C-alpha cells in the first residue's frame, strides 16, 4: 500500500490545483471588483500618511500608558478589546494592500517577456511568508492583544520590507520608468531594517 503514496499524492495535487483554478474562475468577477476598492478609498479622501499614522497609533504605547495610569480596570479592558479589533482590522487592510500589489504584478508579469523564474519564485515565496506571518500575527493579536505583540508586529513588518525589495526589483524589470519614479518618491531612510 505504501508504494501507492507517490501516485496518490500526485493525483491529489492535480485535483487540488484543478479545484483552486475552478474556484478562481468562479470568483473572477468578484476579484475584478476588489481591484477597484483602493482607488475608491483614495478618492474618498484617505491619505497614505494618515494610514501610517493610524498603525503607529494602534500599536503605540502612548494611549495604553494614559489609560493604564488614569482609568479603572473596566475601561482598561474595554480599551484593550477595542484596540485588538482595530489592530486586526488594520492588519487585514495591510494584507489586502500587499495582495493588491501582488495581483497587479502578476497581471503585468504574465505579459512581460524578460521575466526571471528565480526572482519570481523568490517573490512567490516571500509573498507566501508574508501571508503566513500576517495570519499568525492576527492570531497572536486576537489571543494576546496588540500591546503585548508590539515587538512581533515590528519584526513582521521588517519582513515585509524584504518583500517590498523583491517587488522593486521586479518592477524595475517590468516597468523601469515607474520604478524610477517610485524610488525617488520613497524615503528609504524612513524604514529601519
Amino acid at each position, binding site marked *: 500500500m505504501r508504494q501507492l503514496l507517490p501516485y*496518490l499524492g500526485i493525483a491529489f*495535487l492535480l485535483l487540488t490545483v484543478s479545484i483552486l483554478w475552478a474556484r478562481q474562475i468562479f470568483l473572477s468577477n468578484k476579484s475584478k471588483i476588489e481591484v477597484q476598492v483602493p482607488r475608491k478609498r483614495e478618492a474618498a479622501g484617505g491619505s497614505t500618511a494618515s494610514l501610517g499614522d493610524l498603525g503607529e497609533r494602534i500599536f503605540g504605547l502612548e494611549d495604553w500608558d494614559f489609560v493604564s495610569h488614569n482609568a479603572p480596570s473596566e475601561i482598561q479592558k474595554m480599551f484593550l478589546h477595542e484596540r485588538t479589533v482595530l489592530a486586526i482590522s488594520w492588519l487585514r487592510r495591510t494584507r489586502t494592500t500587499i495582495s493588491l*500589489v501582488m495581483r497587479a504584478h*502578476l497581471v503585468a508579469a504574465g505579459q512581460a517577456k524578460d521575466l526571471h523564474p528565480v526572482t519570481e519564485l523568490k517573490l512567490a515565496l516571500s509573498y507566501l511568508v508574508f501571508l503566513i506571518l500576517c495570519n499568525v500575527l492576527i492570531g497572536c493579536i486576537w489571543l494576546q492583544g496588540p500591546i503585548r505583540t508590539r515587538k512581533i508586529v515590528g519584526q*513582521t513588518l*521588517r519582513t515585509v520590507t524584504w518583500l*517590498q525589495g523583491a517587488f522593486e526589483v521586479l518592477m524595475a524589470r517590468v516597468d523601469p520608468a515607474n520604478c524610477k519614479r*517610485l524610488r525617488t*518618491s520613497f524615503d528609504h531612510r524612513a524604514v529601519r531594517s
Partner: protein
Amino acid sequence: MFTQILWWLGIALEVLILVRSVKGNLCQKYPAFYLYLGVLLLIEVLRFSVYVFKPQFYGPFYWYTEFLATTIAYAVILEIYRQALTNSPGVARIARPLLWGVLGAVILKATLSAVNQLIWSPATTQAELERDLYTVQALLLAGIIALVAYYAVAASTNLKGIIFGYSTYVYASVISLAFGSLPGYGPRPGWRLVQPIAYLVALLIWSCTLWSYSPNLAAETESKIDRDYKLIAQQTRRALLKARSFLKMGGEL
C-alpha cells in the same frame, strides 16, 4: 452489459465532438487535441471489431492500443501548454524550466531505479507502465494549471473544457491504475470501470465546452494591455506607497 453501454456511449460522444469540431472549425484551432480524439475513436472502433470478430486477440490488442493511446495523449498536454501560454510570454518563460524540470526529474528517477535493479525493467506490467505515463501527465498538467491559476492567465471556454475534462480523466486513471496494480485489486471488475466512466465524464465535459468556438480571452487582454497597463502601474504605485507608509511605522517599532 454496462461495459457495452459505456463503450457505445463513448464512441457516440467522440463522433459527436469530432463532427462539431468540423462544423465549428474547432479542429483547426486545437489540432493536437482533435488528433488525439480521432486516434482514440479509431482505436475504439478497431477494438470493437477485434472483440466481435477475433475475441482471442482482444487482450494483447487492447494493451498495445492502450499504450498508443496513452503516448499520444501527450499531444493534449502540448495543446494545453500551447493554447494557454501563447499569449503570456512571461508565464511561458516560467513554465518551460518548470516542465522540463519535472520531465528531467522523472527521467532521472527512472534511470536511477533501472541502475539499482540488476535487470532492466521499465515496468512489470503494461498497467504499471500506463500508470507511470499517466502520472507524468498528471504532474505536467498540475504544473500548467498551477501557473495558469497563479498568473490568472485568461483562457477560453474551449480551453477550460479541454483542461478540466482531461484532468478528470488523468486523475481517475492515476488512481484506478495505482490501485489496480496492487495484488488482489486487478481482478476486481469495479476498478476496470473507473477509467471508462471517467473518460465518459471527460467526453461529456468536452461535448458541452467544445460545442462551438469561443475566442481566447488572452488575445483580447493582449490588445487591451497597452491601454490598461498604465492603469495597473498607477494602481500598483499607489498600493506600494501605502504599504511603505505602513513599513515606516514598522521600522520605528
